């Protein structure tokens, strides 16, 4: 789970969404705030289902939120 090859723009998207807090995002997608922290730090790669739910929370396509770092 350390240094996952899946990157994301969650932090920027939260900022763009009226500075949504990590807690608010966590509550919206049904995860703990600490998982949001791990995702933003690139320490955890979400399941496909969670990736879709996060993208949906921001009203984006999944490819606009997550990308492959390799």
């Amino acid at each position, binding site marked *: *789970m*350390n240094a996952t090859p899946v990157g994301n723009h969650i932090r920027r998207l939260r900022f763009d969404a009226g500075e949504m*807090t*990590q*807690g608010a995002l*966590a*509550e919206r997608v*049904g*995860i*703990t*705030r*600490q*998982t949001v*922290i*791990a995702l933003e*730090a690139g*320490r*955890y790669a*979400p*399941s496909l289902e*969670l990736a879709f739910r996060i993208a949906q929370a921001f009203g984006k396509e999944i490819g606009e939120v997550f990308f492959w770092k390799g």
Partner: protein
Amino acid sequence: MHRVPSGLFWLLAPAAIGLWLIVAIPSRWHGIDTGAVGAGLLLAAAAAGLWLSGTIPDDGTSQRSPGEQGRWVALVFTGLIGALMLAHAGAFAGARTIAELGGIGRPVVMLLVGWLILASIARRRPGAGVQADERDREVARAADAVSHVVLALAIVAIAVTLGLTPPARLSWASPIAVANLLMFALVAAAFAGHGAALWHYRRDRA
């Protein structure tokens, strides 16, 4: 950062006395079951600690998820049970009937039941939010794998010891002693699993 209520520090004293009563004092003193009293004191301190920690408002900066906090509690309780079993290893080896181990068994059962009740209360705390998600389940899978390996190694070690040691040197291995050795292997495996889970949580934060 919120200030930690000073009451939490005051709870260390009764918790330490409870631990001392369980581990260091003979199981009966003037007709009183000191193990049960110690376990009760320890559980009361843990319950009070849980209640006090619930009064600390969440300022959104805690790095530890509810799952990780639960693992810390589980690690402490399995560690206590393991330490209790080790401290009374001589009594386990010398016992010929289960009744002889009542003074040790009662606090162990009390700790187990108390831990389950405290964990259940912690999960149902009002405003506790999401308690576990897919990351916790992934950590649990990795922890279970470690626990499984430790248990398998311990069982093999016990089987080899019993199978290859000359009978004359196995006078300690009464059915009760072997049963408790297997229980200790289970506790050690659980302890290793909780430790592995905490290592995974810590790695996610590093």
